[in-house]
């Protein structure tokens, strides 16, 4: 086995690198996702279709007209069974033509035209038949390949125009295409004329650099992206051969339609679905463009879609099949279910609607939920989730010994009223509201933090919380929420932050081009901005003070047309805009209205993610059709509940943590070990940086002190990461926090909090300064206990109760005590024992 040392980067990042990383993550995450190469069917696990005995079969479309020599038609054949199941039988169908020479069938039940005329097509699968009729016209047409509707989509389908390749803002290798072809005029110039036309060879089209590079015949950093057998290659060769013809006034494409268009469920052995895509034009015509569309799946673990539009199930679950053509994007959700014969379905008794809805979905996909967590695990977990801190040994013992029947729900009620809960959940808001001294000044941070704290403590309804922030006016020293408007550098920033926080949408992409995954266009982006562009901020003479106020004029102009853009909200609601009024008021009224489809949903999803480690929609600030929820009914129910209870956040938290779903064990069973999405168990996750520092402090008894806050404030309660430059020798080590992913609060993106493991983290836990300091400090808990002549047993018991909320078992006791007894330097032996405990997953993770 050849060894290979791969350098691992330290996760300590400088400001600049972090900014580009964040920008890349947030703005390009979706773009990068979209550039996975189209799947070849040879690479997908397609088992032969088992036809069985369908009652009848259906073919779509039932009639079709070919209107040119290059037209394609993809049939979709569906089998209907007596038990109500359906299956896609497209690949198992045989086609017979009543008139010869008019059209021919290719692979995959795709049909090509041959000559003008009419024919009937009999479709048969097994004993079932049905038929459809074909008309073929215009086969002698010399119309050249369409640049807009054939050549450009071919480049998108081949992946050339993807965001990680030539569709990137500066392209690659000095070749820049518009992202997914949204700018045909620019692309035309780039491909045909740029650099003296070197990219196309009009006399020997196959030799064109445009094709030779993706074929990897000529050195191409992007590797092999095109084969000469691909349809994209054929289209582009023909287009170049036509002299790179660009049509003058083409009809405009108005949208695409998918077949199947409604969500569907497939049950094994049926695990494939052929899709068909039709493009519609404003002259009333339509074309089957199944062969030219680009296909992706929202979740490659569950479903992959081939370049020919065949969705293939990879595992149990559901995924969105996403189809893209030009600027249009459509998706259909496909569920893949399976019978699991040895499984007896048994669950805990649902505690509330959360469990009912979760179990219903789990049963559909046969992910048997894990049983309830033990008291130890639950106790530790709920403390970490609600207060951010580990419980004390006395608290643990009391809880474990208690025999009160509803002790868990009583515990929850109690924790929700603690100061620790308030401060910990205030910090979560601080993360996404970008509370940082760099943005808002020390005074701004402190005041804003205090305001949020009061809001959380009083369980202020979420709609009022949002209103107070968004409508803030005046001095930030008097009105703390005015500081929100300092957290962005300009109107765009504020609007994008607002959209991501409160609408759960990453609209930022649409600033420069149409959003790659959503129907947001540049018009949407600037329309939304129109609510925010009259906000002005000014510094005053006082140190650290700014004033926020609303101008009563000023408009947003579209960067391309320079026309004034009217304020717009998603859903194209017509809002009544009194020109005298603060436009923000109109926006906020729409935002916090009970019918608003985003506002409540985003918050319940956010709370769910904060408790369960993963949103029902994930990432949880990225709600879109092409990113389906893991459990839509649950999301809807939580949303309705939230609205009904007047946006009461504690109510939602309480509902979630009382459910059996939240309280489930984190252990897998043989049925659910592949589930990472449907919440069949509690998914373990590493303690956050702040939780880790506090846990280490509590364990060792050595408190970290942080600058500019009262002593006793914990890491999980810090108002901001940068209140003062920290003196590393004297006070709490911020570097440790950063290594473990504490966010810098440059953006509203939750993705700022790093949860990757890194070499830096491993080193910190091995013998980092912070840890070493705590372990070797002679005044730490263990050294003191040892000096007071406590027994090894007692010390060990205390350690385990603190670290793991349980007593050590016999084996653990024996190992530790033997080690202690045989050691010469008892102090060091204790340090070793504690070090081992800290480096266990049982300490580093919550589960």
């Amino acid at each position, binding site marked *: 086995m050849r060894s290979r040392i791969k350098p691992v980067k330290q996760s300590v990042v400088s400001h600049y690198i972090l900014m580009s990383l964040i920008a890349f993550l947030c703005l390009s995450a979706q773009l990068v996702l979209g550039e996975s190469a189209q799947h070849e069917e040879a690479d997908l696990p397609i088992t032969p279709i088992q036809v069985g005995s369908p009652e009848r079969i259906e073919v779509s479309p039932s009639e079709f007209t070919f209107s040119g020599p290059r037209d394609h038609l993809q049939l979709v054949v569906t089998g209907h069974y007596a038990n109500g199941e359906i299956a896609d039988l497209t690949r198992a169908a045989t086609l017979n033509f009543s008139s010869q020479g008019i059209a021919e069938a290719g692979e995959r039940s795709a049909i090509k035209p041959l000559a003008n005329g009419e024919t009937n097509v009999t479709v048969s699968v097994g004993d079932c038949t049905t038929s459809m009729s074909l008309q073929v016209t215009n086969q002698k047409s010399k119309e050249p390949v369409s640049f807009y509707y054939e050549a450009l989509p071919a480049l998108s389908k081949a992946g050339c125009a993807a965001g990680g390749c030539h569709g990137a803002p500066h392209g690659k290798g000095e070749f820049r295409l518009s992202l997914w072809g949204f700018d045909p005029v620019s692309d035309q110039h780039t491909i045909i004329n740029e650099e003296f036309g070197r990219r196309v060879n*009009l006399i020997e089209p196959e030799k064109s650099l445009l094709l030779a590079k993706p074929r990897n015949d000529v050195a191409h950093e992007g*590797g092999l992206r095109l084969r000469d057998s691909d349809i994209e290659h054929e289209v582009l060769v023909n287009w170049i051969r036509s*002299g790179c013809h660009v049509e003058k006034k083409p009809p405009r494409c108005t949208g695409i339609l998918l077949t199947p268009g409604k969500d569907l469920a497939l049950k094994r052995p049926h695990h494939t679905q052929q899709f068909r895509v039709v493009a519609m034009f404003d002259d009333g015509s339509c074309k089957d463009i199944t062969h030219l569309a680009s296909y992706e799946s929202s979740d490659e673990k569950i479903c992959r879609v081939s370049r020919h539009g065949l969705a293939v199930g990879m595992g149990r679950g559901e995924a969105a099949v996403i189809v893209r053509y030009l600027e249009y994007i459509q998706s259909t959700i496909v569920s893949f279910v399976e019978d699991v014969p040895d499984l007896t379905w048994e669950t805990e008794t649902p505690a509330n609607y959360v469990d009912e809805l979760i179990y219903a979905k789990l049963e559909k996909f046969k992910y048997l939920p894990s049983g309830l967590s033990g008291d130890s695990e639950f106790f530790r977990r709920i403390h970490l989730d609600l207060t951010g801190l580990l419980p004390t040994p006395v608290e643990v013992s009391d809880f474990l010994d208690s025999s009160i029947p509803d002790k868990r729900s009583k515990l929850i009620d109690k924790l929700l009223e603690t100061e620790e809960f308030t401060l910990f959940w205030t910090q979560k808001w601080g993360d996404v509201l970008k509370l940082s001294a760099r943005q808002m000044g020390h005074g701004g941070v402190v005041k804003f933090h205090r305001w949020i704290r009061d809001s959380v403590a009083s369980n202020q309804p979420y709609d009022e919380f949002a209103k107070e922030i968004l409508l803030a006016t005046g001095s930030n020293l008097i009105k703390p929420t005015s500081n929100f408007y300092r957290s962005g550098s300009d109107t765009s920033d504020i609007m994008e932050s607002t959209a991501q926080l409160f609408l759960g949408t990453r609209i930022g992409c649409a600033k420069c081009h149409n959003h790659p995954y959503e129907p947001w266009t540049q018009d949407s982006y600037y329309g939304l901005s129109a609510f925010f562009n009259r906000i002005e901020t000014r510094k005053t003479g006082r140190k650290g003070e700014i004033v926020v106020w609303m101008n009563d004029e000023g408009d947003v102009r579209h960067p391309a047309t320079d026309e004034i853009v009217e304020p717009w909200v998603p859903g194209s609601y017509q809002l009544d805009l009194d020109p005298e009024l603060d436009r923000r008021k109109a926006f906020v009224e729409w935002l916090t209205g009970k019918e608003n489809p985003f506002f409540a949903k985003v918050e319940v999803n956010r709370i769910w993610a904060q408790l369960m480690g993963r949103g029902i929609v994930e990432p949880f600030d990225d709600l879109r059709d092409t990113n389906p929820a893991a459990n839509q009914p649950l999301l809807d129910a939580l949303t309705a509940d939230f609205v009904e209870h007047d946006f009461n956040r504690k109510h939602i938290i309480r509902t979630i943590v009382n459910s059996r779903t939240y309280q489930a064990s984190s252990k897998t069973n043989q049925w659910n070990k592949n589930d990472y999405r449907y919440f069949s168990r509690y998914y373990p996750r590493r303690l956050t940086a702040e939780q880790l520092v506090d846990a280490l402090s509590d364990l060792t008894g050595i408190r970290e002190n942080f600058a500019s806050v009262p002593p006793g404030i914990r890491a999980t309660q810090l108002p901001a990461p940068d209140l003062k430059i920290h003196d590393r020798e004297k006070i709490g080590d911020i570097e440790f926090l950063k290594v473990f992913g504490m966010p810098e609060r440059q953006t509203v993106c939750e993705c700022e909090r790093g949860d990757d493991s890194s070499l830096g983290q491993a080193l910190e836990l091995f013998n980092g300064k912070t840890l070493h300091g705590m372990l070797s400090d002679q005044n730490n808990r263990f050294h003191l206990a040892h000096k007071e002549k406590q027994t090894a047993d007692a010390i060990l018991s205390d350690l385990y109760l603190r670290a793991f909320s349980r007593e050590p078992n016999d084996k653990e006791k024996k190992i530790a005590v033997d080690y202690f007894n045989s050691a010469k330097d008892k102090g060091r032996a204790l340090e070793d024992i504690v070090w081992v405990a800290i480096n266990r997953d049982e300490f580093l993770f919550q589960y």
Partner: protein
Amino acid sequence: MVVASLITPLLLHAAQPVSFKADLAPILLNQCQSCHGPKKSKGGYRVDTFERAMEVGFDELHYRMVTDEEDEIMPPDADPLPAEQIALFMRWQKEGETFDGVDPRASLAEIIPGLKHPDPPSQYSRAIPVTAVAFAHGDQSILTSGYHEMLVWAAKDGQLQRRISGLPERIHSIDIHPDGKQLAVAGGSPGRSGEVRVIDLSDGSLVQLLHKSDDLCLSAKFNHAGTRLATCGTDGSVRVFDSETWQEVVTFTNHSNWVNDLAWSADGNRIVTGSKDSTAKVFDLTTNTRISTYTGHDGGIYSVIFDETGEHVLSACSKGKVLYWRTESGQAVKELANQSESIYRIAALGSAEHFIFSGAMPSVEMIDLQSGKKGKEFTSTCNNLSLAVSNDSRRILTGDSKGGLRLVDIESGELLTRFTAAP
């Protein structure tokens, strides 16, 4: 495919030993050099010379071509090398791993033997962009770039007189030696190879093959005395050759991107180069040093020319500007033109005072140097890629991206001849 055309004949004569320079160098160049070359050297490994390619040893090279390890197979993002190509490497090793080039430090592009260019098609299915034009035979003939050939047309009526083949796929520059006997052609096959060919004008025979590169050569110009030939191209280098011995006199690699054009001063002591890196540089050939760099352009420079005294340079760029600056210092003097479209060519109109330029705009524009104002304008078609002034300075010739040629009288502005430069 370049590699195939070289490999196939050799495979038929399996008795012949494998030649590193003819058989293996093209594979390394085409399949490996984009990630393991001077621009990008992944893993710190380069293949662009024999010495570098062999640094890791044959075993490692071979291992990477055949391994099953997904993260070690090369090339990483494509199909593995075809079995025949790997077999060539193996046979070469068995036969002693001999290097049959002259210099193990020369670049692969340089050692691959001069490619024989395919014959041009007898008729063109499409007119191709005219990227180079020149007057010849006392302004009686017009030379245009063709597809693997140069075409000779009668100036008075646009009749095709002669076709000179054996030339690179695309020709970006045609320059006739002052004695009228030889000419230098710069060009190549985009992304694949480049060269400068000096040929005898009377019979089209090859005199010398120079400046071999892995992508196009863009310009080759004789000095006014005819003693030197300067060449430049996409590899960013500028080379000067003695036109008797064809020895390389000096090479400059100061530019960081393609060098699109160069020009000689009248006394032959200086050349100025214009590059895609948005700078122009002046080199003194008596000392072989760079004497100035002009950084006033904010786009790639397509064309450069000295004024009559050689004390100033006019440079034209992709942002539509013609800028006038001092040779010695690189200091700007004034802006002579500010178009909204790219300018591709600038040429002197005989007298010291007038210059013309053409580019993506549908006209050829004249500049009056004294007044700095625009002079006459000659309507033309869009996208003129090439421009030439007749030796008697009375006519101008433009070639466009659709294969169109226009010969215009300067005095009257009359269109004298017009044709499509495609057989």
